[in-house]
């Protein structure tokens, strides 16, 4: 009996494992497929994208030409014709008539000058991928491009490279500045006694509820008055302001959870608040700092609105998201360029995420569970 019930328990566990893993796999698959499609499309030529879907790079069966000939001149092209032992009208042959042995006879071209192809289904993959889309998108200059026929074309690139540099110039300081400020503030709120500490902290946390959108116009007006609009400083300040409440709150939760004894021991050892902060708190808070850094970096990198309002869309300061939005307008049908551009904008966030993901998962829990 005991062995039986243990067995059935094991089986139940196995079944629930299969269900959970299956569901997870399905979710991941559904979420990943479109991204994968974008990735594949960004490597395909313009012609390929327009004539077939990205999935044609996967092995699939396709009608392939095995034979080709000119139709007899004396065929009655308006009536029923017999070609290769098959009967049909012109319309039917245009669609293709299948023989029982698996081949297909298709009329290619117009009624008068067309030709006839004998086709067979064969396994095939379209793997003629190219890096040209990326060269095109990244470059800012005019450059020569050879098309399939070997003719040289002069094309103007989309200058993503410049936009990437601009985005970095925005995102890196907009990540570092708020973290530095918030770490100091969080330490102060957590471990220093000063009048009004609680009220100040409540005010900082309350600032979390103010949406970005309603602050944009007043801030823009101030920037205009201060002659800051269109500068990187403007966007750094804006991101710092919007990021600080959450940063302070997250870091406060983490830093206030550090063991009191360690700090007291350091006090007795003769450390000042500043020494404790730099020598103990910062090294011990690396997980929290890293997780917030990821948050803030992704948010500033992907931001469109704040950047548009505070630095505008002049090409020399334009960030990546703005560049991307612009080519959606100017090259809306050039999917090969749009997908390449989209992927370029994703590479850095992906790299950041994967290299720091262990901090990310831990950091998400930082506020909720102590210990």
């Amino acid at each position, binding site marked *: 009996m005991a062995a039986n019930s243990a067995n059935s328990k094991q089986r139940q566990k196995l079944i629930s494992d299969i269900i959970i893993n299956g569901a997870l796999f399905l979710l991941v698959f559904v979420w990943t497929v479109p991204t994968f499609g974008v990735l594949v499309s960004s490597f395909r030529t313009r012609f390929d994208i327009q004539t077939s879907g990205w999935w044609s790079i996967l092995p699939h069966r396709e009608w392939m030409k095995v034979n080709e000939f000119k139709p007899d001149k004396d065929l009655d092209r308006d009536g029923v014709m017999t070609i290769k032992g098959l009967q049909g009208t012109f319309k039917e042959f245009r669609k293709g008539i299948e023989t029982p042995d698996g081949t297909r006879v298709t009329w290619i071209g117009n009624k008068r000058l067309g030709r006839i192809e004998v086709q067979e289904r064969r396994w095939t993959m379209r793997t003629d991928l190219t890096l040209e889309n990326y060269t095109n998108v990244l470059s800012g200059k005019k450059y020569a491009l050879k098309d399939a026929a070997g003719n040289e074309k002069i094309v103007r690139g989309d200058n993503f490279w410049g936009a990437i540099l601009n985005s970095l110039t925005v995102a890196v300081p907009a990540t570092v500045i708020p973290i530095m400020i918030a770490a100091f503030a969080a330490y102060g709120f957590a471990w220093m006694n000063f009048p009004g500490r609680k009220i100040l902290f409540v005010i900082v946390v309350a600032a979390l509820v103010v949406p970005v959108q309603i602050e944009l116009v007043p801030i823009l007006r101030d920037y205009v008055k201060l002659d800051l609009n269109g500068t990187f400083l403007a966007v750094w300040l804006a991101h710092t302001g919007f990021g600080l409440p959450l940063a302070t709150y997250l870091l406060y939760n983490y830093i206030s959870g550090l*063991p009191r*004894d*360690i700090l*007291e*021991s*350091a*006090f*007795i*050892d*003769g*450390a000042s608040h500043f*020494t404790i902060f730099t*020598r*103990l708190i910062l*090294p*011990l808070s690396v997980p929290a700092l890293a997780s917030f850094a990821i948050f803030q970096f992704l948010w500033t990198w992907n931001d469109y609105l704040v950047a548009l309002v505070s630095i505008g869309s002049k090409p020399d300061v334009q960030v990546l998201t703005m560049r991307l939005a612009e080519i959606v307008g100017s090259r809306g049908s050039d999917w090969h360029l749009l997908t390449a551009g989209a992927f370029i904008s994703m590479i850095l966030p992906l790299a950041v995420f994967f290299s720091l993901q262990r901090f990310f998962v831990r950091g998400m829990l930082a506020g909720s569970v102590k210990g």
Partner: protein
Amino acid sequence: MSSVTFDKMTKRYGDVTAVSDLSLEVKDKEFLVLVGPSGCGKSTALRCLAGLEEISDGHIRIGDRVVNDVPPKDRDIAMVFQSYALYPHMSVYDNMAFGLKLRKTPKSEIDRRVHEAAQILGIEQYLDRKPKALSGGQRQRVALGRAIVREPSVFLLDEPLSNLDAKLRVQTRAEISKLHQRLGTTFIYVTHDQVEAMTMADRIVVIKDGVLQQVDSPQNLYDHPVNIFVAGFIGSPSMNFFDATLTGDAKEMYVDTGTFRLRLSDEQAQKVAGSLGKEVVFGIRPEDINSPDYLPADVKGVRAPATVDLTEMMGSEIYVYLTAGNDKNFIARIDPRAAYHVGEKVEILFNLDSIHLFDRETEKSLLV
């Protein structure tokens, strides 16, 4: 090397008084243990001395210097925490050197002191490790080492052994005592464990609810507790108490518990004469209750009947749980040769030389 004086020190948190009116003199080179149940304010007193808490009233002096407003780092003290409070991201060496580096001690001097302390504590081979790679006992030594290298004039230890397992605790207890002898520095040690207090202390301070109860050497504290609390707190199993009345007259005075009557010696009777006829609490330690068949030499006693509820064989002695009269339970430590059985009615013998009498109202001892 210096003495420590608490002068009417009070510490309040809002309306709660954690330590009230504590006056205490710690002599130079003394090993003083503060003991009491958890929440009694002993740790608070220590933290006030360390400067981690501001005191609400009174003075604290280290040597001749009043340190009320001196920051912790300038009090010339070192503290060992219950949780060890090691810096987790630093090696053992850096943990020990941290305080010295902050004080701008020359490098060669730091090196010398750290290695010396590590040698005393037997942790030389771990100097490069991080705390998480050490066992509890080793971490404890690092914490001690961190205090030693500072060469402070007073060591403060806040329950340093409570995170260790029982065996290691006994071993480390002895090592801390040795360390004290070797360093010849004032040690102030906080614990809730009366065994630690008894074994290590030169003098013990018993605190209850923030109020000092008694300061004395371990033996005196054990033999002459000033009140019921101290009597019950020190010693294991703890002292037995009986509600009783003092009867008889000045010549022949009895402690009457209702089930048995014990005649007091003349000397004792003289001391408690003022309470004749009053209700008292009669206390006696388990080892002062004997089997009449296996009496230690020189014990004069009074016999009384009791019923055996339970016996616990300890090898060197038996703990016998007894009932006298109507549901009055008490414990005796009896010679293991006395074969007592559960349910048996037996006669036991109270050693009259070591009894305690307390006033029922004030709970103070009548015999001191």
